[in-house]
């Protein structure tokens, strides 16, 4: 840091630190203490049956990195993200833009699109299981097909991705609507007077001015998709033959750390995932500087 700061800079630095203090202190206590704990555990063999932990160095890392299961789940997670992130964002953006205009029933639509977020997870799981059911499922009945939507290795990941997109649309849409609200209406008025049509307005005003929000959603959804867990938790059983080709890395972590009680191995999986997401985030942050519009 610079040694000579003007009084103005000094006051900014002082207030800046003061403003982030509550959040940072909270995060350190609530989240970073557990994270460091996890880092430590990844070097340990956790003691079963009350026998205490033993330090094993990098043994867990060696096991995790040489297991094909790890790489398979990482690849599953990436495939899932490749469906959920782009489709979830594009559909939500279109809906948000449509709902930002003055149209009949706007607030009713907004409420309806919000409903999946508060709906009981058990109901969501039931509906999708029914839709995908091979014998009685709506999809197979309507299309007269006989597809095993969630137990066929080749398509199960797509079926799971579709549920992912469906459940995230409302979430992305709320964020997009929030971002759209902050674009001053005068811009559109000026553009209308200039004779720009809806599409022109969308690409010349909405897209650039919304880019910070869009980037935020892309960044948080990539992280969210790569740490996906609940979906598989709800829909996939242990007996499902396609499980190996669908399970995400967090699901694998849960199986090891919670179900099997092997916390050291689970912690190592978290570390591998963290490293992977950090690389992607770093790349994204570089992209942000070039793409995102700041006034």
């Amino acid at each position, binding site marked *: 840091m610079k040694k000579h700061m003007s009084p103005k800079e000094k006051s900014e630095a002082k207030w800046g630190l003061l403003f982030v203090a509550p959040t940072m202190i909270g995060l350190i206590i609530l989240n970073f203490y557990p994270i460091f704990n996890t880092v430590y555990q990844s070097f340990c*063999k*956790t*003691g*079963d*049956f*009350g*026998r205490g932990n033993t330090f094993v160095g990098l043994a867990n890392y060696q096991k995790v990195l040489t297991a094909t299961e790890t790489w398979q789940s990482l690849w599953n997670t990436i495939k899932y993200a490749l469906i959920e992130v782009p489709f979830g964002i594009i559909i939500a953006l279109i809906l948000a833009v449509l709902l930002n205009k003055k149209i009949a029933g706007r607030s009713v639509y907004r409420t309806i699109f919000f409903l999946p977020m508060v709906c009981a997870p058990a109901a969501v799981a039931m509906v999708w299981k029914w839709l995908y059911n091979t014998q009685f499922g709506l999809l197979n009945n309507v299309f007269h097909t006989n597809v095993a939507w969630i137990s066929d290795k080749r398509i199960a990941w797509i079926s799971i991705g579709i549920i992912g997109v469906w459940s995230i649309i409302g979430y992305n849409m709320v964020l997009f609507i929030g971002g759209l609200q902050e674009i001053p209406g005068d811009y559109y008025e000026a553009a209308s007077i200039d004779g720009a049509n809806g599409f022109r307005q969308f690409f010349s005003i909405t897209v650039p001015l919304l880019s910070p929000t869009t980037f935020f959603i892309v960044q948080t959804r990539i992280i969210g998709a790569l740490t996906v867990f609940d979906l598989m*938790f*709800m829909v*996939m*059983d*242990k*007996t499902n033959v396609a499980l190996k080709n669908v399970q995400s890395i967090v699901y694998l972590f*849960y199986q090891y750390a*919670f*179900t*099997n*009680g*092997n916390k050291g191995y689970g912690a190592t999986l978290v570390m591998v995932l963290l490293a992977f997401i950090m690389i992607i985030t770093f790349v994204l942050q570089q992209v942000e500087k070039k793409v995102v519009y700041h006034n």
Partner: protein
Amino acid sequence: MSGSGGRMQHWLQAEKEKMRDMSVRQKISYILTYYWLYIAGILTAVILIVFFIHRMFFSIKDFWFYGMFANTMENGGNESDLWYDFVDYADFDTTQKKVEMNSRTFFDPTVSGGTNNSYYQAFVALVESGDLDTVVMGTEALKGIGSSGRLLDLSDEKCADLMKKYSDRIITCIPYDEEYSEESVPVGIDVSDSLLCTKYHLYEEDCALGISAYTDRIESVETFLDFLFSEEEGSTDNG
């Protein structure tokens, strides 16, 4: 610091100056309009601090006993008949430490996806924090939990007494992690014919009790087991 103190004084004087000609009512409304945020902040802080001190120093903190009864539809929770009878039997003073019973969890490692739920996560948190002492559930399910290494190995010195007393009721399981042992480890005590089933009807089929691997209240567990196998007495029914 002296600089900011001086500023404070200056500010106080300026405020006094402003309020000199106001009536009491005006003064109050002036203060409320300009400083409500600060007043609210300080009030909240004071309330929080008092609350914290009260909770941390003047209320019961430790447990006598923390038991979990999983997969039952009957009420075996706090202030149920089971709870009162046990507190009576063990003669625990609940104004000093707490007796906690939880009968609202449902998980089953023998069923596919039976541990993929929040109940199981809650159970793991309770075990690994060391708060939980015992868990009772169906015998097969308990074996599944035992395999994950979260139950105490009863051949441990700590529970030599228990081993001796209930040697004919021991339930064993094979750990998931082969590095520990490929042979079975004793993790549970069969309680199918105890008061849990005969008197409180928590379970209809086989059930067993496991001790958390992280507990340090083995004596309480022994008391609880004694209670479960105690003869039904008239006095408890009256209470």
